[in-house]
Each structure stands twice: as C-alpha cells, then as structure tokens.
C-alpha cells in the first residue's frame, strides 16, 4: 500500500489511534492499581508505594556449614515465607491475607563492591497503595524476619553435642584403629619408628665398613671389655624396648592434651572477641565453655603426667631418641670389636641383611602412619568446628543482622512513566495497525480519477468534509 494512501487513511481515522492510546494509558493505570493491590477509594495515578529497607545478614549457611547435618535457613527464605507473612498480618491485624501480603514482599540480593558471601546485603521491598502502611509493613517484616532468623538458626550445646557425637565417636574409633594397626605392624616386623631405625642401621653398616679400612681399629680389645660392652648393650636394649612399649599410650594421651589445648586456645580468642560486644549472655556462654575446656585440658595433662610418673619417663620422644642413639653406639662398638677379632664379613653380613629387611617395610609403614595422622587431624577439626558452632550461636542479634537503611518510600516515578509510555506506545501501535488494515481493505474510491473510472462521468466538484 502506498504511503500516501495510508496517510490519507490515517487522516480520516486518527480518532482510532487516539482512542487506542487512551485505552493503552487506561490499561497501564489499571495494571498499576491491580499490581499495587489498590481497592476502590485509594486509587493513585502512580499505583502502589514501595517501602524499601536494606539489611546485612551474617548467613548461617556459611558460618555454620556442617555438610547438611544441620538445617539452616537464610534470611531471604525467611522473608519470602508464608509463615513470616502470617506473623506480620497477625501482629498488625492487617486487613489482608497472608498470601496477599506474601505477594507484595520482594527480597533481592544487593550488589556490593566486595563480594562477601558470608555476609550478604539484602534489599527488602513491600508494596502497598498507602505509603504509611507500606512503611509499617516493611518495618514489621524486618523485625519479624529477624526474630524468625534467630529462632530458626539458634543452637545450644546439647544440640551441637547430639548432632556431632556420632561423628566424633567414629573419628576416635578410626584413630584408635589406626594406632592399633600401626602397633601390630611394628610388633610383627620388630620395628619402631622405622625411619629412625633405618637411619641408625644405615649409619651402623657404614661405620662397620669404614672401620675395616681404618688402621686405628683396636685389634687388642680384651675379652673383659667385650663382656662389659655386651652387658651394657643388653641393658640399653632392654630399656629401649620398655620405652618403645609405652609409646602408643603416650601418644594417645599426648594427642588428648593437644586436642584440649587447641580448644582452650580457640575459646580464649573468642572470649576476648565477645568481651567487646557488651553482651553479658554471650560472655557468660563463652566463659562457661572456656572453663570446661580448661578443665578438660588439665585432666588430660594430669593423665599424661601420671603415666609418665608411673613409667619413670619424661618426654617420651626425646627419651626414645636418646636411648636409640645409645643402643646404636653400643652396638657399633660391639660390632667393631667383633669385626676386629673375628673378621668383618661375619659381622657385616647380618647387619646388611637387617637393612635389607627394613627397607621394603617403608611404604606400608608410611601408609599406616598417614592413616593415623589423618584420623587425628579430622578429629581435631571436628572438635574445633563444634566449638565454632556453639560460639556462633552466642552472637547477639545485633551482630547477626544489621539494618543498614531503615524502610523508606522509594520513588517509582521512572517506572510509572515507563509503564504509561509503554501503554501509550502499545495503544498507538495497535491503532496504527488497525488503521493500516482498515485502509488496506478499504475499497472506497479515494481520488477523482477513481470516481471517474467508477462512473464514467466527469467529476464536477469534490465536496470536502464540512468540519
């Protein structure tokens, strides 16, 4: 269709476009009333008022992660829940249903320059035709959401102990099993601290090899001296065996002391943090926990001391090192003497055989040792997490949820203008389309030439519109 014909049709039917623009504007207005929940008597040209508050929340999903063993509810879920809407409606005795209110509450994650996932910032928006009512609703939503947040995420010691007891028991059993497996391995293969033993054996073999070369080897050692050396070696070996036998229990007790000591350190640190919050209840809780941890530490230390006293040992690892060195030295002297008197080969051969026996045991020994270390590390971590949980619940509400911006009425002028413009543009578009279609299918004679063709007569005059 020619542009001229369309423009002529538009000039004739402009009122259609105007009418549909009006319909579009009316539709925009109606949409705003409908979406804003307006009722008869409180219509506004710009629809509903939006009250918006900004809240920073310490989310439990991050601070209390427990691999799903503890249900956690974040702030956004609480704000969007029907339960919260019911509480707000009941509290304000609002003349609306909880479902209706729920549809008017929007929460979204605010953008920050630093993406801190552990403390997101939420923007909570409540719509209502009445601005004052919107503010009241938004205030109440924030307060009730804060209460619900604390109620649903609060933990006490018994809950934590109950939820973690099975895990702790399992990890302790794993650690004990690892210790037992390592001990069995050591007994069966007559090895203790295999790496140290290997080092000593290698040093001994090297020493023997060197002694055969050196000229200064005593070849005139008396049999009395050799007997004294033999006796001293036997005594040292016996003592070493006794100390080695104490090692597993000593290590277990030392681990308990280490565990209790870590807990005390953690709680002491939190004690100083909580002291700054001026929250007596939180301080009391943390102090109680810290006292209990200190008692556990003292008990573990007492057990360890009693064990040491009863077995006449001090620091077992250093004693073991000392005694192992003594035995090695005595053996080296004994074997050196034996080599001088009887021949190096006879002495060196069994020691080299012992070295060869020990070397293949290294991988299995390493595996068992790692297993024990892993079990102990997991147990240490679990206990630390348990204290984290207990301490996190002692945080006061003011710390867990802060209102950055109090509810305020947000201008929706831009959105209103956009919506009206959209309605007008849509109406104009539909109007222009209808005019186009009507003009396209309009077979009326439009020009003098068409009339002359239609009638076969000359057109004397064109009568324009009278208006």
């Amino acid at each position, binding site marked *: 269709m020619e542009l001229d014909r369309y423009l002529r049709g538009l000039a004739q039917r402009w009122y259609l476009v105007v009418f549909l623009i009006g319909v579009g504007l009316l539709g925009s207005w109606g949409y705003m009333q409908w979406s804003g929940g307006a009722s008869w008597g409180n219509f506004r040209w710009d629809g509903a008022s939006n009250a918006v508050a900004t809240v920073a929340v310490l989310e439990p999903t991050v601070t209390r992660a427990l691999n799903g063993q503890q249900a956690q509810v974040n702030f956004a879920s609480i704000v969007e829940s029907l339960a919260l809407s019911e509480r707000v409606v009941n509290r304000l005795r609002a003349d609306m249903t909880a479902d209706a209110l729920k549809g008017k509450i929007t929460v979204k994650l605010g953008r920050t320059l630093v993406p801190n996932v552990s403390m997101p910032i939420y923007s909570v928006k409540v719509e209502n035709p009445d601005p004052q009512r919107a503010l009241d609703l938004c205030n109440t939503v924030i307060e009730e959401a804060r209460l619900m947040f604390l109620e649903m995420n609060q933990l006490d010691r018994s809950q934590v102990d109950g939820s973690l007891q099975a895990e702790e028991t399992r990890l302790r059993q794993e650690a004990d099993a690892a210790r037992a497996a390592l001990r069995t391995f050591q007994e069966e293969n007559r090895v203790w601290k295999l790496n140290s033993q290997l080092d000593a054996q290698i040093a001994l073999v090297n020493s023997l090899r060197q002694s055969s070369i050196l000229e200064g080897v005593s070849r005139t050692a008396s049999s009395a001296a050799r007997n004294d050396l033999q006796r001293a070696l036997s005594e040292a070996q016996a003592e070493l065996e006794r100390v080695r036998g104490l090692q597993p229990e000593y290590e277990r007790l030392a681990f308990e002391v280490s565990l209790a000591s870590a807990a005390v350190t953690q709680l002491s640190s939190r004690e100083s943090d909580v002291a700054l919050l001026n929250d007596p209840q939180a301080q009391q809780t943390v102090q109680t926990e810290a006292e209990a941890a200190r008692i556990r530490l003292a008990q573990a230390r007492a057990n360890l001391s009693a064990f040491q006293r009863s077995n006449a040992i001090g620091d077992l690892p250093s004693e073991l090192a000392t005694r192992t060195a003594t035995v090695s030295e005595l053996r080296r002297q004994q074997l050196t003497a034996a080599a001088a008197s009887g021949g190096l080969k006879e002495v060196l051969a069994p020691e080299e055989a012992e070295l060869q026996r020990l070397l293949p045991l290294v991988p299995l020994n390493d595996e068992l040792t790692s297993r024990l270390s892993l079990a102990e590390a997991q147990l240490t971590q679990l206990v630390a997490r348990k204290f984290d949980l207990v301490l996190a619940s002692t945080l006061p509400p003011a710390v867990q949820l802060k209102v950055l911006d109090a509810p305020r009425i947000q201008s929706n002028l831009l959105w209103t203008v956009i919506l009206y413009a959209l309605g007008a543009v849509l109406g104009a578009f539909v109007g222009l389309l209808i005019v186009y279609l009507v003009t396209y299918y*309009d077979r*009326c*004679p439009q020009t003098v030439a068409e009339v002359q063709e*239609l009638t*076969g*007569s000359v057109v004397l*005059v064109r*009568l*324009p519109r*009278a208006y």
Partner: protein
Amino acid sequence: MTLTHDGVKPSLPPPHEADADGFASEVAEACRQAATSADSLNGQLARRDLAERSSTYAPIVPRPPFHRRLFPRVERPEYAEAFRLLALNMRQVAASSSLRSILVMGALPGDGRTLTAANLGVALAGTGCRVVLMESDGRKPQLARLFGAAPEAWAAEAPLNVDRPRAAPTGVPNLAVVLPVARDGVLARMALPPLLAALRSVADFVILDSPPCLQFADGFLLSTHTNGVLYVVRRRQQDAAAQRAVQEQLARLGANVLGVVFNEA
C-alpha cells in the same frame, strides 16, 4: 394553455392532455399561494439550522458524526466554496443550453443527495437566480427538515392534499421548497411534467431531490423529465458493477448526465 415540456423525451408516452392542463393551472396557483404566504411562514417555522448559519447563503452542513461532536464545530470554508463552484458550473452550462431543471441522483441512501440539492439551491440563489427545490423523495422527505420545517408543520398550516403541491419559504431569498405530489409515497408520474413546467415558469432553476436509485426507480423516472442529472458518489464502499448498471440505465434513458459530485465526507 399549451405547455412545452422541456426535457421530455419523445420516446416516453405523453401525459394526459386534459388532466395536464387543469392540473398545471392548479399547480401554478398553489405556487403563487406559496410565494405569497412565504413571508408569513418565515417567522413561524422552527429553523434551527438556519439560525446557526453565519449568513443567509451559507451552506447547510450535515450532522457531524459522533466522534466529531466531541470537539467544537469549526466549519471548513472549502465546503461552501465547493457548492459555489458547482453553482457556477451549473450557471455556465445553463447559459449555453436549455438547462433549467436538475435532478440530483445517487445510488445508495446517505450519499448526500439532499444536502447537495439544498446547498446547490442555496448557492444558486446566492448568485441571484430564482431557485425552486423540489422534494421528489416521497418516502423519506428531508428537504423541508433541512430548512427547519417538517412536512407535518406544513400540513398543520395548510392540510396537505396529495394532489396539490405546497410551496414553502426557506428563509433564503430567491429560494423556495416545493413538496412533492405524492400518493402513498410514490411520485405521480402523470402529474410531474405539468408541475415542472409550472415551476420552470417562475424559477430559473428547478432542483429535484430523489430517492436512491438502486432502491427505487423514481430517480430514473425523474431523469427523463429533467434537463440534467447530477450524480452524487460518496467515498465509501462501492459496488462497481452496480454503478456501471446505473450509468448504463441512465444512458438507455437518454439522461443528460452533467457530471459527478464526489462527496468526501
């Protein structure tokens, strides 16, 4: 009195002589009576449209459509000028021929025949011609209404005799309206030629309004008694075949089609 029947084609049967003479004198008398009573009637008839007109020879405007009634009415001067141009054309044709009676025809109701006839009459009267508008649409007479008086009002003033035409004033100098000679809404063919002759004797132009010719044959009948036909076409959906049939019919009747008035309203 012997009348010369201008525009009557020889092929048509001649009217009844005796009746024609007697009736012609009656018509002339009726017209004289109407002319003398025009001044007294002027002040009595309700003439809404006339009162709204800015001057005596201003055109009669159609009733605006609904959406145009929402806004102030501003008449376009082109509307009046179009009729002045049409009147000028008619006068020019009349000067070079024997054009005295003009039939305004149209195919469908609402084409604008009555308004065209009335406004052409006003425009011709404005040029100093004496014009008689003859209401030939007996089924739906509109001319009288346009000038502010319903036929019923005329009937109250002087009871209408179906065999006696009535002349009425219009408020426009040199312009009179004549009610049809009608019987049950159908134009009396036999009475028409003497009436036209009588009117031509007192006026420079006789303009006849007619019913839509695609619905009633009156227009074709009238075309055989007039000197020229003005065909009105409105800008709306048209049936080209029907229009061709109308033109062919007019050609068959030997009608003198002066031209077309293209009504863009």
